[in-house]
């Protein structure tokens, strides 16, 4: 029964979990996140709710966060050395730049809804907060994203500063 249930879970939710990871991490890291997420689901199958997708994405989110923490610790120095050598990175698209200016919690909630297709209730399960809290936070995050994007666009439209006396 356990193997059958896991088969159903895996077949039904692998695409969503893999897409979640690929949207946030390079392929090799994403594959690790997916494998770890389903391993957790297999070990804790008794705890997986019948509506499993938000639960699985919640696990994937935590696995990804742990992976990033380890990578940061491991590679902080290496990254600094490489960034000193590498040329200036190209500027991201305005929507990504605006997204990058949000608090991580707001960004994740927006992405769970906009990219992963979760309802607010499902996103609340994935984030481990109440439905009401998720609703309020989503409203706030949407407004912040909008404000950041507007600010970026306004900054781009500002004329280049001119030196006095020039024509």
């Amino acid at each position, binding site marked *: 029964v356990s193997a059958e249930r896991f088969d*159903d879970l895996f077949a039904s939710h692998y695409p969503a979990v893999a897409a979640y990871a690929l949207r946030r991490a390079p392929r090799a890291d994403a594959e690790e996140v997916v494998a770890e997420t389903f391993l957790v689901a297999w070990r804790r199958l008794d705890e997986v709710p019948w509506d499993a997708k938000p639960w699985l994405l919640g696990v994937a989110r935590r696995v990804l966060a742990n992976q990033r923490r380890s990578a940061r610790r491991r590679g902080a120095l290496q990254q600094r050395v490489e960034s000193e050598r590498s040329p200036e990175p190209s500027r991201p698209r305005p929507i990504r730049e605006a997204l990058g200016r949000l608090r991580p919690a707001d960004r994740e909630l927006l992405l769970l809804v906009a990219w992963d297709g979760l309802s607010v209730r499902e996103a609340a399960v994935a984030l481990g907060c109440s439905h009401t809290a998720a609703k309020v936070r989503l409203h706030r995050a949407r407004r912040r994203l909008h404000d950041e994007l507007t600010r970026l666009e306004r900054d781009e439209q500002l004329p280049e500063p001119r030196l006095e006396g020039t024509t």
Partner: protein
Amino acid sequence: MRTDETLALLERDNPVADGDLPEPDDELRRRILAVPRPPRRHGRRKTALRLAAAGAATVAVVSAGVLAFLPGEEASAVARASAALEGSILHTVVVTRTGSSTGTTETWQQLSAPYDSREVGGRELAQNDGYPEMYDARTNTLYVVAPGTKLPPPGRPTSEPARLLRVMRNMLSSGEAREEGAATVDGRRAVRLVAGNASLLVDAETYDPLEWSIVSDDGVRQTSRFRTYEVLPATAANLALLSLRAQHPGAKIEPGITVEGFSGPKDRE
């Protein structure tokens, strides 16, 4: 720019669109299943038993979830409903209602490889060894894939009733499902099983599913009522029900279906 336009902009920037979702990795599934699971934890059962002590009404609710896991006890409604979902060829007539729209589809779905299926709804469609086929009754033509098209074999049943079956199994095996009263569906006595925002009505005697219903966050209820639900043995006559060629032997065969992304002979290997 309005806030909802900003969100639409973000949705369009999705790096993995819904049409490009990765396929399940069977090798990973096998590797995980080879890992031994830790012994079963009894936290949920203990909680359930504590709840049962709170009152007689609670006992009835909790027992449905707990008895399914206790050997030697009489099978619960949840366990019986789970057993009713086993078989070889699933034959269903499902009436689906979402808001004010309604549709009826009759489906035959093989529940083991090669997972052939045939459905008659607005159109008559089939999956034959993983290859899509379509029958046009007006011209008595059977459309099949273009010669040389190679598709990966399906790893599981693909029809909508098969998806419903998976969802219902998930609900029943999660330990969350509980019995919640009785109802009548098309004149049949039914037991109501609920978990979260979903409910399943099963026949009170056979435990076959009668109606699956789920309410979305925005309050829209989607209901799938099983006018017919039967599991057929894999006899030659029943296997013929899966095949458009067997059902329409005089049809003209037209290799007209192209499947995007799959064309080379190597794709199937």
